[in-house]
C-alpha cells in the first residue's frame, strides 16, 4: 500500500486572494469541505438505513445500544485522520 502512486491535488498557477488577507479564503474552503463531508455522511447513513429497512435487519434501538470493538475504534481513528487531512488541506497548501 505504501508503494501506491499519490496523485497531485493542488493545481499549478496563480492563486488569487479574494477576501481580506487570504485567511478568510482558507476558512471558506474549510467550511465548504466540511459541508461536503456532512453531506457525504448523511447520504451514507441514508443508504444504510434504507438497506436495513429493506432487509428488516436492525431496529433503531440496536443502533443506540451499539458499543464499538477496539479494532473498530482504530478504524474510526484512521477515518477521522483522513477527514482532518481533507479539511485542513487549505492550510497545508498555504505552508507548501
Amino acid at each position, binding site marked *: 500500500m505504501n508503494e501506491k*502512486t499519490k*496523485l*497531485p491535488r493542488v493545481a*499549478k498557477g496563480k492563486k*488569487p486572494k479574494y*477576501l481580506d488577507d487570504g485567511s478568510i479564503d482558507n476558512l471558506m474552503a474549510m467550511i465548504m469541505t466540511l459541508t461536503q463531508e456532512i453531506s457525504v455522511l448523511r447520504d451514507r447513513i441514508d443508504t444504510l438505513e434504507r438497506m436495513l429497512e429493506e432487509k428488516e435487519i436492525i431496529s433503531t434501538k440496536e443502533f443506540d445500544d451499539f458499543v464499538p470493538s477496539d479494532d473498530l475504534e482504530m478504524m474510526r481513528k484512521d477515518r477521522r485522520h483522513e477527514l482532518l487531512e481533507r479539511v485542513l488541506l487549505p492550510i497545508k497548501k498555504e505552508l507548501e
Partner: protein
Amino acid sequence: MSKQKHSMQPKPSHDESVRQDFVTDLRAYLTDEIYSLITPYYEKKIEPDFIQANERKPEDKSEVKSLMLNDRGYQSWSLLQRLSQQMMFTSVIDTVERNLDTMIDDLDNHQSIGSLDIDESLDIPRYLTAYDIHQQPGGYHNENIEKDISAGAVYDISLPIYSRNAMGEENDLLAQAIIRYIDDHLKTFQPQEIMDMGCGIGNSTLPFSKKYPDSKVIGVDVALPCLRYAHARANALGVEAHFSQQNVEKTSYDPESFDLVTSTLLLHETSHDAVPKIIQECFRLLKPGGWMIHLDVYPFHKKEDDPLYDFLKDWEVINNNENFSGALRNMNMRKIIEDAGFSSETVEFTSAEAAAKYSKGYTGDFYLKLPVYLAQKPNN
C-alpha cells in the same frame, strides 16, 4: 450516485460518489442561486455608488473589475466558484488514485480496436506546462507513474460534474454540435479522413467515427495520459479511432491528407504564437475542398457594449487558469484564417448548437450554443 459509463472508467465508492454529487449540486446552486444575483446586485448597488461619485457609468471592463474585486459580495461568489472547481478535482482524484493500478493493468485488455502512436520525445508546449489548465492538478500531460492514465480518467469523471450531467452519457455534446452543423449547413459533405485536434480523452473524436462509419478518424494531442485513456476508452465503447501523440502546431501527416479537421475547446488553451500555426497546419493537412471547423467558448472579435458582461466573461481567465482565453478574443481570426490560404468567402464565424437534457436529479433542457470558426480550403 454515478454509474460507470464504460469499462475503463474507474468506479467511485459510495462516499466518493456522493462527495462528487455534492460538488455537482454545489456548482448548480452557485450558478442558479448566487451567480444569478450578481447582475441585479451590480445594477442596484455597485453602479449607482460609482455614478454618484463619478457622475458617469463605468465605461469598460477594467473599471468594472476594480469595483468588483473590492466588493465582498462578488468576491465571495468568485471564491466559492473557484473552490467548487478545486473540490471537484479533489473528490474525483480520490477515485482515480484508488483505482489507478487496476486501470493500468486493465489497459492491455483495451487495445484491440484502433491504434495509439506515442512520441516520448515530444516537447510539451509552455502554454500547457506553465500552469494547470482549469486547475486540474498536474495538468493533462504529467505522468505520475509508468503508463499513467490518471489525467484522462480525472477529466472523464469531472466533465459530468462540471456540466451538471448535460454533456451526454459519453461526454460528447460538443462534437454533436459540430456534426449537427455539418448536417444542417454542409449537407453533402461526407468526410473520409478526419482529424480531431487536441482530442484529449477522445470524447469529441469518437462521435465522428460513429457518424461516418466508413471514415478514418485520428485524434491528436500532446498529452499522453489522456491519449492512453482515449484509446482504452474507445475500446471500452467499441468505437474505432486512431490516436497519435503530436503537437497540432505541426504534425507528421502528409499534406492534403484530411477532408475534415476539427477541434473542440482547443484554441483558447493555446497561445498567441500557436493559433496561427494551428490554422496553417489545418490548411496544410486539408485536401482541396476540405473543411476546418473549430468550436470554442468565446466569440472572436466582438466588442461588448456591456462592461459588466465583458468583465464577467473574463472570470475563467483570472480565476480558473484560462490565461489565454481573454487574449484570444482580441486576435484577428479572419485575417489569420485568410492568411493561411483559406477562401475568404468560406470563412465563417457562427454558432454550433445541440440540445441535451440534464440528468441525475436535474430536470429541464440544456441548450448548448457555442461559437464555431470554419473555412474551406479552395478546390484546385
